[in-house]
């Protein structure tokens, strides 16, 4: 028996997108496979590594733990949507590139989404607040030192540019 599917509508990175998916389709698979947005990475498939973090109405969520049908009608921002008008990289993106806040880069999209939300809530976090705020994202390459620096640098860039 063919599996029942559902038509959903998401606003992804400001663009209205439609997809037809089974109820159990993960948001991560929907983004990557149905919508072709492979910038969102899947590292563990069970909500531990944080590589798949996207912003749901501005708040970070694990797209690998979210069913696509449950976010129909909502706004999703992925790493591909973080850049500003004209494709200029956001301060968070620039800070990670500038401060060597990445090596293999597989975890980076998740970190960028988490940090974008963190700095919106807390524009000048302390080290302790950065570490607490990023404790749900794993990085295997950097030992996190330059990620902390990147967050502070991003906060500076945001302050300078606002």
């Amino acid at each position: 028996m063919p599996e029942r599917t559902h038509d959903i509508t998401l606003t992804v990175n400001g663009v209205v997108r439609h997809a037809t998916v089974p109820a159990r389709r993960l948001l991560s698979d929907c983004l990557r496979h149905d919508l072709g947005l492979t910038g969102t990475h899947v590292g563990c498939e069970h909500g531990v590594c944080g590589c798949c973090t996207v912003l749901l109405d501005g708040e970070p969520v694990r797209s690998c733990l979210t069913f696509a049908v449950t976010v129909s009608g909502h706004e999703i921002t992925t790493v591909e949507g973080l850049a500003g008008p004209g494709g200029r990289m956001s301060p968070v993106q620039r800070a990670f590139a500038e401060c060597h806040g990445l090596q293999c880069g597989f975890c980076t999209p998740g970190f960028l989404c988490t940090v974008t939300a963190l700095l919106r809530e807390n524009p000048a976090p302390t080290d302790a607040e950065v570490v607490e705020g990023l404790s749900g994202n794993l990085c295997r390459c950097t030992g996190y030192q330059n990620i902390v620096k990147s967050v502070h640098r991003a906060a500076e860039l945001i302050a300078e540019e606002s």
Partner: protein
Amino acid sequence: MSGMDTRVAGGVGASALRPDGTLKVTGEFAYSSDLWLDDMVWGVTLRSPHPSARIRSIDVTPALAMPGVLCALTHEDVPGLKFHGLDHPDTPVLAIDRVRYQGEPVALVAADHPERARRAAAAIVVDYEVTEAVTDPWRAAFDPSCPKVQEGGNVLRHQPVRVGSVFEAPVVVTGEYEVGMQDQAPLGPESGLAVPAEDGGVDLFVATQWLHVDRDQIAPCLGLPPEKVRMTLAGVGGAFGAREDLSMQIHACMLALRTGRPVKIVYGREESFFGHVHRHPARMRYEHGATEDGRLVYVKAEILLDGGAYRSSSPAVVGNAASLGAGPYEVPNVAIDAYGVYTNNPPCGAMRGFGAVQACFAYESQMDKLAEACGISPVEVRVRNAVSQGSRLITGQVIDSPAPLAEMLRELEAFPLPEEPAAGGRDLRALPGGVAQTTHGEGVRRGVGYGVGIKNICFSEGFDDFSTARVRVELAGGEPHVLVHTAAAEVGQGLVTVQAQIARTELGIDRVTVAPADTRVGSAGSSSASRQSYVTGGAVKAACEAVRARLDKLAEENPGLTLPELLERSGPVEETREYRHRPTYPMDPVTGQGDSHTQLALCVHRAVVDVDVELGLVKVVELAAVQDVGRVLNPLALEGQIHGGTAQGLGLALMEEIQVVDGRVRNPSFTDYLIPTILDMPPMRVSILENADPAAPYGLRGAGEPPTLSSTPAIAAAVRAATGRPLPRVPIRPQDIALPA
């Protein structure tokens, strides 16, 4: 000629930014798991549930009957050689008549959707006759009644080291140590895309550490000449040794050739734990004899490394454990026996530190025991025995470049210690257990520990270790432009940045592009053994020098012309060069003597920890490191390597272990296999020394692995200092501290 100014920005020594950094922060960088073709289908691997079993039969017909399934393959469908392997082709492409570890690949399915492929694989009927699994490496090695995992016997290599004959001393300390099975846990899972070609060959896009050694294993199994297996490096989501052995490469190619469709295989995290080799777990017995003032008289050791079911790179791992088994200390008398054994446990092979990590934990634990027995400080005992330039290793090899271990230790010791927090009112986030509020400071003790590590850089023991680079200078938009082409795998370490820096410095041209790595250029060797800056860096330098010589000649023949004018006249100037490091030699099979390494690197760590001694929870407060890298090519990237290597050593000290019970992996997920989070990793203090190695390009010394060695024993020593427990095993578990046997 203005274009030859070697002071161009972004050259060797600058903190040049990664050229792939922008794509990695915009989400456009294509990792192997992101590859997509509209007509592609999905491959899935059926794996053995048993650590040891005979296969009576395999029936794929139920899978073939399922919707969307294109084919289901077994060992009978392997077109060529049915075995592969890094060191020796002993690993079946697909299991033939028996399986030797849980997770061994048995059959393949291709289907039009990954879920359909998974369901079809589950429908394949394999009739197993379960046999006794050999899971105790000690028994495997030394009990003649133990079943043989491989026909040649269970000891895959025994490497002794014998020096001197004095094995008595006034002070003797002994210990038995264990290192658990660590996983590389790169965040990007094994994955790739195989595309069948019109000529009967295949194009494979994959995340790997060494394209050419992959191809040398893939092509014979496919029954194809090497030139019909064309490989391109896809984006690599970390490696750390996990991608040295083949995973899905041959499988995807087989499915692609059979179906005539592009085939994508992506492992999930659970499958990844079964799809690559791990760090060898080790059991080690050590005895150190010394004078009363702590000078080493002898070291005796037995090092047993569990290689699991297949050979992988175990022989070389054993060689490292043996040759570096006493650490960077002067020892006049040595009796070390290192063994690698086959068992039905998960196969083990390369992981950052490669055989040097396990021994380092043991010999450093011994040095602390010795310090205590002699009533001197941990730093003092290490300084008194430290090697320096001119010292002999236990293999007889003379260290012929700077090795300022004593100075490094003194510098490390002089770093200010982090302040001890005042009692009461402590920030919970800084305590072991954190905001879980397992303590408000009561029962928390601070400890400080030191660790030292020595790692061989590049491949050792006579391996013909080389890299190839093609460098081309041409006009692009009227400006000189350099194209660097190698097959070297950028796995995150920053090699792509360094290659461009070298080209800028050597050619004085700032516009440099590093071409995608593929097999259209000669082998670069592996992105492992901390060797790529040395060997591929050396090849890029040599090719640039050859190009520069031609440009200089052109300039001489055409006085007064600028570089763009010369290139306009000459067309592109291109040279290809191979670069080899100094040869190395095998270890004597009886005495272990020989100049087996080409370069040695040192790193030292100090760890400061707070331990809740009642609950056994550890908070690492600070890690400090001093490393001598010969010459810094890129400060930013180098520090990143030291930070990351240190974090993996922290993981081994405190949390990372694949738990294997009766040959079965019990924790193949990131819920149960713990890798350090940002909360676990403390701030780091790093000091980098530049005492050049004259034999190496720019005097550089490989840097990626050494910090992974020394951080583990430093943390273990700090936890011992805080708790007073002996803690002979890493990772240290809460029960080892709070509920000692």
